[in-house]
């Protein structure tokens, strides 16, 4: 049982990381990023590339991957989302949808559909109080927790974090106060994407990388974000935990094939009964 809960926690942590990125992008840019899962996938593939082309260590590869993806995210925001900022939000939604199609298929052309194994640096199994875990899984939990904690502190106390919160609370008000709103959008998008890519880098060595892995990650991200409340960071963390644990318990009760169904039924139920989510607040119509 405690082993199950632990596995649920590992998955939940990665969901939380993806979902926090998704929720920041929604809260600040007002965009639901349908390409979010693709950056999770890109994180894993970038790591794979650095490890196999240059032969870097896991940690160095991780750092290089994050920098590369941050640059890609910056370009994407600048070229596609910024021009659409003033148009209908459904257009930005469709733009990210187009991006997700492009990214998946570009990766599929370069790396083919063959699942790729990503080498981790921490493969030893350790035992803590009757729970068996690879070091990589512990790394997932520790690093995710540190990142989320760091982000929370950043948003609370750092000047830029405060500006980000101001924009998410009131776009117009922030603009009137002279906050460089476009720059905040850009920074927030890059931060959100890097979180998703980091999840891919952390989870990558515990599984295989395929070009379509992003779709499921994105769907899970949505479940978590809706569960916790769109735009709420603590909601995303708690939602991630709930989904991760619900899935592992669900798969042990109903069998692995039904695992993914748990999340979607949960999602529909929350949407229909309590659409603002656990930590959400009712958004004004903008």
């Amino acid at each position, binding site marked *: 049982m405690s082993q199950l809960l632990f596995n649920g926690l590992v998955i939940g942590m990665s969901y939380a990381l993806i979902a926090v990125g998704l929720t920041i992008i929604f809260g600040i840019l007002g965009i639901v990023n349908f390409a979010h899962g693709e950056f999770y996938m890109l994180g894993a593939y970038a790591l794979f590339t650095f490890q196999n082309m240059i032969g870097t260590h896991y940690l160095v590869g991780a750092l290089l991957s994050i920098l590369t993806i941050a640059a890609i995210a910056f370009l994407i925001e600048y070229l596609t989302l910024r021009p659409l900022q003033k148009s209908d939000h459904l257009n930005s939604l*469709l733009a990210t949808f187009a991006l997700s199609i492009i990214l998946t298929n570009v990766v599929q052309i370069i790396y083919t559909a063959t699942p790729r194994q990503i080498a981790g640096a921490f493969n030893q199994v350790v035992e803590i109080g009757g729970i068996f875990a690879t070091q990589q899984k512990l790394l997932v939990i520790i690093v995710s927790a540190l990142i989320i904690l760091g982000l929370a502190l950043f948003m609370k106390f750092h000047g830029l974090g405060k500006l980000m919160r101001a924009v998410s609370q009131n776009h117009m008000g922030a603009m009137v106060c002279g906050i460089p709103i476009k720059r905040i959008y850009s920074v927030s998008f890059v931060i959100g994407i890097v979180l998703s890519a980091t999840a891919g880098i952390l989870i990558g060595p515990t599984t295989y990388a395929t070009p379509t892995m992003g779709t499921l990650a994105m769907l899970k991200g949505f479940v978590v974000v809706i569960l916790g409340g769109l735009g709420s960071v603590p909601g995303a963390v708690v939602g991630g935990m709930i989904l991760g644990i619900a899935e592992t318990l669900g798969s042990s009760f109903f069998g692995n094939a039904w695992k993914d169904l748990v999340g979607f039924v949960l999602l529909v139920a929350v949407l229909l009964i309590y659409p603002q989510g656990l930590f959400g607040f009712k958004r004004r119509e903008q």
Partner: protein
Amino acid sequence: MMKTRLAYLVPSAIFLLIPLVVTNPYYLKILITFGIYSLLAFSLNFIVGYIGEISFGHAAFFGLGAYFSALTMEYLGVNFWVSLVLSLVLTGLVGLFVGFLSLRLKGVHFAICTLAFAEIFRLLILNLGDWTRGAMGISVARPKVPFTDISLGSDLLFYYLVFAVVVIVIAFNRRIFATPFGKAMLAIRESGLLASSIGIHITRSKIAAFVISTIIAALAGVLYAPYIGIITPNMLSVHYTATGLLMVILGGRGYLLGPLYGAFVFTVLPEIFWMSPEMQLVVFGLLLLLCILFMPKGIASLLQLRKLGSIIRAKNGG
């Protein structure tokens, strides 16, 4: 009136005569795919173009249509045409259920909710392998012409079946906007608040449009099954929704013939410039992106066609 007749007659004549010009059997197959995909796009246009919401789970109804048809043929022993009717009714009922629940939501919440429903249906079909054969799929034979022994196995006859359906759907699309229901729908698209102020029940009209849309999607699915020969749970996946959205946005959302242009660009053009399927999707993704950035109203707007609303206005002399 003369002009309206011409509007029907000219395209119908083109559809009738195309097989005389295009004799290459491979091109005929592409044309059939074009017809079926345009049906999928027409159905999605009801949601994207007329209701003004984006559904990310529309392929569910395309796939459910195919599965209901195949399963009723398998377990009830009915022939293809009866299964077609049963499938449309059953998918319409599922559409009513999904629409009733999800149309309370708007924008991104609606999009995510439809996506979740689509995944639920896909996983159900995938995991209920005892009835649906799961990932193995079900093979579906080509039907016979009713009351005869003539099989629609030849692509030529199947082509005529598909295009008869396409013409009917286009005519239906045109007609519906002359009815009070169609006018109510247009009023909602232009301004929901104003429409409700004159007593139009918004959610009810939206649900009705949603159900019509799911029935057309099911029609596309039922035709697709015997054409392709085998159906798998993949038919309900995001891939087909993406295809549909690409066609609707590229073609021009809310335009009567928009889906037709979109489907043409999507199915016929890749054959002229041969590319691998992945490369095609990259190109279409880029096209979609460029289209949203620079031409959000799609190809139909380029051709200076009038949106459906303005056709009605012109007819009423307004």
